[in-house]
């Protein structure tokens, strides 16, 4: 979300190309998540986390299209969305640690964060009507902003989502429903969780739907742009269905999926590898060193912060 200018995003000043920016964005998410997982494994973090590894292209593409008036609702897997929103990795790290300096003072933790127009909550589906209501607020307040809400494939199991689709279509609300189908809900493959078709579930309510399978950020970008623009221009809901893949475990460990399959998919589907092919070695190295500095600084600083009291 380039409209939100934030000091720590030092890379912006060094930014060379759009391709570089996108890579940098995705790499920040990747390294942040890897660090978080490593800290959990090392027993330095407590609680839980849900890594966005493999899905970075979705966030990078979508948040490019949003501006500061837009509202974003994210779910349990919110770190990637938050970082792409322009959120501060240090304050997110502090929140993961339950520190007083965290985004919400350590009260929410990994799944329950809020900063500016970005919100997340850990109840699957429940955020969908809330985001829909915020779209109504955007409309009646004539802000020009839209609301965007992220759901996983599994979350299409929750009924309140359909209630919301019905209403947003009836009332013509500027809300974009983004479905990130990473093929699994926790351990449940999409075939066991979803009958029928993703697309039809939205179209049944008269909601304009965009769908693609890719982890190439440049492939996703035009869809994201079209979807966002459709919602913004028409004050009507749309759905953007992104078929992607999750490389990491659902939360911290305990991944019952076949490792070889994951490795094989990762080999051709890793959004970072795909995007790296468009950069020079120098660019790649520079992104790596910038990002690792930012991530390391975030976690190191957060570790030193105090815990909250009531």
């Amino acid at each position, binding site marked *: 979300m380039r409209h939100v200018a934030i000091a720590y995003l030092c890379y912006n000043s060094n930014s060379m190309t759009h391709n570089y920016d996108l890579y940098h964005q995705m790499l920040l998410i990747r390294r942040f998540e890897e660090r978080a997982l490593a800290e959990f494994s090392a027993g330095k973090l407590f609680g839980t986390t849900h890594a966005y590894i493999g899905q970075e292209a979705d966030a990078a593409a979508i948040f490019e299209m949003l501006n500061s008036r837009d*509202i974003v609702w994210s779910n349990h897997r919110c770190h990637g969305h938050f970082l792409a929103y322009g959120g501060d990795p240090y304050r997110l790290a502090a929140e993961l640690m339950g520190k007083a300096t965290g*985004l*919400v*003072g350590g*009260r*929410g933790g990994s799944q*329950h964060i*809020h900063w500016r127009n970005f*919100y997340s*909550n850990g*109840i699957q589906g*429940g*955020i*969908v*009507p*809330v*985001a*829909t*209501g*915020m*779209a*109504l*607020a*955007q409309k*009646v*307040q004539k802000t020009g902003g839209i*609301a965007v809400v992220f759901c996983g494939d599994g979350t299409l199991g929750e*009924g*309140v989502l359909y*209630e*919301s689709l*019905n*209403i947003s279509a*009836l*009332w013509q609300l500027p809300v974009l429903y983004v479905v990130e189908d990473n093929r699994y809900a926790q351990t449940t493959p999409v075939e066991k969780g979803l009958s029928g078709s993703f697309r039809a579930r939205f179209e049944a309510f008269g909601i304009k739907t965009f769908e693609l399978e890719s982890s190439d950020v440049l492939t996703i970008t035009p869809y994201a742009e079209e979807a966002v623009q459709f919602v913004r221009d028409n004050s009507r809901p749309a759905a953007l269905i992104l078929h992607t893949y999750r490389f990491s475990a659902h939360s911290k460990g305990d991944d019952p999926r076949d490792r070889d399959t994951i490795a094989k998919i990762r080999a051709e589907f890793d959004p970072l590898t795909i995007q790296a092919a468009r950069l020079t070695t120098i660019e790649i190295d520079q992104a790596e060193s910038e990002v690792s500095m930012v991530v390391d600084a975030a976690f190191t600083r957060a570790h030193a912060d105090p815990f909250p009291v009531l």
Partner: protein
Amino acid sequence: MPTVLERLNAGLQHVMEIDERVYLLGEDILDPYGGAFKVTRGLSTRFPERVLTTPISEAAITGIANGLAMRGLHPVVEIMFGDFVTLIADQLINHASKFRWMYNDQVRVPLVVRTPMGGRRGYGPTHSQSLEKLFMGVPGLRVLAPNSLSDPAALLESAILQEEGPILFVEHKLLYTCPVLEIGKADLIDLQFEKVSDQYPAFIVRIAGVPQAHLTIAAYGYNFELARAAALKLAYEYEIFSEIVLFSQLSPFEITPLLESVNRTRHLLMVEEGTQTLGWGAEIAARTAEVVSNFKCARAAALDLPIANSKTLEDMILPSAEKIIQMALELVK
């Protein structure tokens, strides 16, 4: 004398007039119907842009209102029957009520959910319950109930405009047609009133010119009507003198006036229409027992059963003035 229904309607109309951030959402709330119990009648005609009739989607409506509230509007949701609050439990408990605290005090959620509760209309097991107790004690949520003694319009207006957090506003179906009482008039001539709390008024109601009370009756909402009738009869027919502590705010609530009363009377009878177990009265009893160590108490509540359709069964299941009297006699004997 206007009825409670008329005052609620007037209150809604007034806040919509003075504050254009107020939005109403609910099923079948448009004119000419004006809602299943007519509380919103006339409003969609006057404020067509801000009265939104919705599909039958209690959870989503509440979630949508939640989103509106967080963006600075003042949504008021009508849930057609209080029995359907089970469908909005997740939005109230895991969303609206948590957001402010969980987001470290950075958001406000001025959301009001209004809904009619209560039986005696012969609507049967799924349209007669008093389920407000499910939401008492939910952190971050306030539960209010109007009564005929203090202006329901004022209570509702204050809930909609003066609050920063979500509110469940419980209207008893039988209260709708009750006239708002004018203190000192008509059947109130025998009663004295002491207002013991302000924004959400609590009252101590005493019978004029009788000896010191030896029974405290705690009540809210429509049950004040039953408690009042019982108190008068207890005084005039049985020479048992009581004072009623009437609450508008049910959760969280200020117990002090009640404690003071129980310290005087040493007998406490809680009256409520919800089923007895873990009802409002349980919290009253617990709060009292934590502070007062020598008192007797009892609860006049619904039996722990669904509410039957049949009037004979309903009468046996729900508390009545007669039952209150019987329990009071038992308690103070």
